[in-house]
């Protein structure tokens, strides 16, 4: 089973931006792993959520024909913890996109008006860079089949499309 870390898309503007939503539950085992008596969502998984959101945004720009790989985390600044019961939004914006890859600016926010009113709604600011690996400047060859956007992924995306209130 492909591991997926976002629950649904709530906005999607091709080649421009996407917003996804993730519900964080105490039932998820990894919340207990970092600090057993103080469950939080590990920062690495917050970056992963942004990478999945942005990766799909970048992939869609070329109809999922390129192998889109997370190449670099340019910045990851965390402002608050994410706890069980929190719902978070991954907001990804395309800064640059060309035949070789893309750079993305991302914000992770709590879906919580009270937190925002108190100036506590921002979870993280994340900048990512993606590479279309077949266009790498070193000329390194990779397997022909698209091991990033697989058939399994296409099925998953079809489900997203069915349940998303946006064209994806």
């Amino acid at each position, binding site marked *: 089973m492909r591991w997926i870390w976002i629950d649904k898309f709530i906005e999607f503007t091709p080649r421009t931006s996407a917003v996804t939503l993730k519900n964080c539950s105490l039932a998820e085992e990894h919340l207990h792993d970092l600090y057993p008596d103080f469950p939080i969502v590990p920062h690495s998984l917050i970056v992963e959520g942004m990478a999945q959101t942005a990766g799909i945004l970048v992939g869609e720009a070329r109809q999922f024909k390129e192998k889109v790989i997370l190449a670099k985390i340019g910045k990851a600044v965390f402002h608050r913890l994410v706890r069980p019961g929190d719902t978070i939004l991954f907001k990804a914006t395309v800064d640059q996109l060309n035949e070789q890859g893309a750079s993305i600016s991302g914000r992770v926010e709590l879906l919580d008006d009270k937190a925002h009113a108190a100036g506590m709604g921002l979870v993280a600011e994340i900048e990512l860079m993606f590479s279309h690996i077949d266009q790498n400047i070193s*000329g390194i060859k990779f397997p022909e089949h698209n091991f990033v956007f697989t058939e399994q992924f296409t099925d998953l995306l079809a489900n997203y499309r069915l349940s998303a209130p946006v064209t994806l």
Partner: protein
Amino acid sequence: MTHDEIYAKVKVVLVDALGVDDEEITPGAVIRDDLGAESIDFLDIMFRLEKAFGIKIPKGELMPENVANDPNYVENGVVKPAGIAMLKEKMPHSNFTEFEKDPKVESMSKLFTVEAIVKYVEGKLK
């Protein structure tokens, strides 16, 4: 924009892209050897240059691609005269003096210095 102003902005780009200290960046610093850039960093540098200067950098313009794997240009790990001519044409912003004395493929990265980037941007802004 003056040469010094471009240099200052390029410096910021390289500090952000490569996580190096300000003092490590000198005009002669080689991007790969001295500043530790890996291949993926070059795409990052290109993106940041485009954003900082409002320019477009077409694929292969800042640094020619796949030269090392091209038998027309490289033989037994050495860049042939045709390869050097092609590099000179495509990289007029680089200094070839030292490279031409011993044009090994592994020395090609030395053509890509901080000053070469500054000159490239200068050319784009004209």
